[in-house]
């Protein structure tokens, strides 16, 4: 199957047929939606991780404060 596709890509006649087919005149394949999905994942995952870092940091800082107060009262 792969060799078939490659043959199609190499063969100029086949290429011409592909590009003359309706909807494909622009050349590159129409993959805009996939690109958007990809970047949503990239920035989404990094953003979520940053949020998780910040929340964990906030909670721990609060815990630390409370604990330090208890510590002072205790002695």
């Amino acid at each position, binding site marked *: 199957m*792969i*060799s078939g*596709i*490659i043959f199609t*890509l190499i063969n100029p006649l086949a290429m011409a047929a592909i590009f003359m087919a309706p909807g494909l005149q622009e*050349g*590159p*394949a*129409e*993959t*805009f939606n*996939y*690109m958007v*999905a*990809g*970047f949503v*994942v*990239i920035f989404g*995952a*990094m953003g979520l*991780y940053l949020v998780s*870092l910040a929340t*964990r*940091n906030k909670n*721990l*800082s609060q*815990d*630390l404060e409370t*604990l*330090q107060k*208890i*510590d002072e009262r*205790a002695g």
Partner: protein
Amino acid sequence: MEAKPKLLSILDGVSVVMLLIATGMVFFYAPVEAVMGLVQKVFYFHVAAGWVGMLSFLTAAIVGIILLRTGDRKWDIVGLASVELGLVFSFINVVTGSIWARPIWNTWWTWDPRLTTATIMILIYAAYLMLRSGIEDPDRRARFGAIYAILGFLSVPLTFFSARLFRGIHPVVIGSNQPGAEGQFDMTPLMLQTFFFSLITFTVIFVDLLWHRVRLGRLQDRVEQLKLKLNV
């Protein structure tokens, strides 16, 4: 809580600026690939995330060796931090790869060597987290985590090699000469510049995030110790 070091603030700024520049380069500097079209733009950050994932797991293994040698638990904080980051970036790597594969290979998933290895790597380090969560004694947790990080990292190249002996269809873009890999393309100079700039950017982001995560780990350690001291 310790004051935020100045260098870290600078690094934060540098990371953000570099990420903005890299994103700009991907969209406006690098040309649209002639066959695959716009989805190819995912490739720059896809490879960069994969690279950072490997770098994190390598860091975890090296830190594991240092921990076993010195017995100093501060290295455990670094180890856990890098595994966590490695999981985030490997996840980005695998999912973006899958999104790219759908229009190009016409399938969300194939048992290609790199894809398989990356996925098994995620499973290994998920197991790492499970192992840690089952151990209460901090010293033992540190030692076991270090051992597992070392074992896991050793098995990764072997997994890749064994999966590669099965035939793969993943394009080898750098130093390529593999006929038959579908989705193969030659990078123009502009693409290459974008590619290397993305790699450097993600490496800087990795260092920055690792630093933040280590600071968080230290904070966690302090809270735990205070809890033990106060018996709550």
